[in-house]
């Protein structure tokens, strides 16, 4: 590799990610007696299950890159993003190094549904570490960018009254309001309407020009092709391919069609 001027922003070194799920009680343990038997026989509780979601991922992401993460449902894409963001710990032996503080932006990003959109913007911005003055400055821009007020004053209504598309747009607008060294986007672009998708794709390009790295998880082949020139294909927690989007997509498609 001769391009020494390329600055890495995320380095994953043999990262394994395991998370635990509580409260998935199986069909044969619904009585106190069976739970008691389980404890006596020292059987491992199935109420606490471990999921080995990512098995040894290694890659280097550089400044100014937009990387698409593709793979079938449950292949570990979102988990990998969370680990890059430092929200899920990496198991011993491997590590993920990142520049600054990567931020994750996903359709699952939970804001408070009982609060108005406007208050959620304030809360979200504060949670990203902005000062109250910065927040005050940006609230109107964020709401305007999200476009939730295009059909009347929705920003003062509780978020539980929003359609899923509106909610996703607001979340994207909040996260995109801040300059990020590394921005991780989890299927956020797929939920908006065509108009918003265009606007957000433009925003992703802007964010990249501000010298950040963008990771995008999406099932929409088109939005990956449009925004990312590099793609990583994850399957069953293992990286199957890593390279230019066109090549990786082709490999992935032949795999899916099988």
């Amino acid at each position, binding site marked *: 590799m001769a391009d020494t001027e390329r600055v890495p922003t995320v380095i994953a070194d043999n990262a394994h990610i395991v*998370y635990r799920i509580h409260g998935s009680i199986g069909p044969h343990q619904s009585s106190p007696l069976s739970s008691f038997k389980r404890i006596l026989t020292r059987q491992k509780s199935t109420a606490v299950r471990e999921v080995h979601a990512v098995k040894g991922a290694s890659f280097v992401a550089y400044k100014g890159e937009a990387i698409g993460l593709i793979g079938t449902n449950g292949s570990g894409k979102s988990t990998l993003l969370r680990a890059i963001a430092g929200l899920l710990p990496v198991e011993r032996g491997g590590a993920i190094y990142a520049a600054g503080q990567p931020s994750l932006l996903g359709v699952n990003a939970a804001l408070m549904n009982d609060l108005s959109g406007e208050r959620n913007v304030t809360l979200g911005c504060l949670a990203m570490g902005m000062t109250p003055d910065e927040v005050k400055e940006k609230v109107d821009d964020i709401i305007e960018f999200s476009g939730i007020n295009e059909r009347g004053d929705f920003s003062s209504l509780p978020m539980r009254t929003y359609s899923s598309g509106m909610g996703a747009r607001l979340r994207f607008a909040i996260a995109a309001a801040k300059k990020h060294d590394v921005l991780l986007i989890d299927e956020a672009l797929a939920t908006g309407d065509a108009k918003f998708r265009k606007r957000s794709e433009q925003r992703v390009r802007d964010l990249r020009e501000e010298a950040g790295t963008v990771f995008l998880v999406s099932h929409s082949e088109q939005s990956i092709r449009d925004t990312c020139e590099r793609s990583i294909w994850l399957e069953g927690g293992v990286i199957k391919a890593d390279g230019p989007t066109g090549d990786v997509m082709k490999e992935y498609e032949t795999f899916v069609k099988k």
Partner: protein
Amino acid sequence: MAQTTVVEPYSGPTPKEQARKYGLSTAGRLPSLSEYTAQLWAYRHFIWEFASAKVSAALGNTRLGMIWQVLTPLFNAGVYYVIFGVLLNTKHGTDNFIAYLCAGVFIFGYTQTVVQTGVQAVSGNLGLIRALHFPRASLPISITLVEARNMIASMGVLIAIVLFTGEPINWEWLLIVPALLLQTIFNAGAAMLVSRLGAKVPDLRQLIPFIMRVWLYGSAVLYPVTKYTEHLHGWKLAVIEANPILVYIELIRHALMENVELAGSPTLLWIEAAVWALVMGIGGYAYFWRGEKGYGRG
């Protein structure tokens, strides 16, 4: 270079060396305690906003809204007045049993609700924790703040009751401020302690009601503290008298009411209150901080 598959190990400088060269840090590194405190301070606006958001979210879909902050302690006092004042007409040898009882109920209730909601501070906000980056101690601290705000309303009700039942106003009343402050520090520590424990062992949530019940009977809430000195001796009495909630309740009763029999001298009570606040506050904080990076795992 052919960039189709990177299954073979990465060549060149090791990832660790490269990361150091470009100043990358491990995702999920535990900050030092002082760094963590600085982060937490930088997030003070978030903590405050999160606390008020929680209150508005909880009361937002009621008709009376924020009035419930005052109504809840008022109803609470009303129930105890009807049962102990009207139906049973209990005196237990105290002059002003209703005020005595309400002071106990409100102060105990403060720690009780903080512990009950604190045990879910982490496990109930996993969505937020897995989506956004902020010092996790913000969550138990916010919960303490929510209850502290409710406590201010409760104190207003308590003062009204105390006045109504004929206690004279004097300078000692100002002592409720430092007493509540110490209790708040104690509660914040307790919230952080149980929220990490609750994140590790979800079963704790089922046990908390029983623990709090035992604690209630050991805190002289429903009967005068002199019952303990009459019936208990030796280590049992020592344990009861060191009980932090008992200490905080005694201090409030001492500040607001005349002729209250205390378990110890006021000086001793103040020392105990301060020691408990420090031990629980710092201990709970340090314990919570140690687990900072694992909370997202669930």
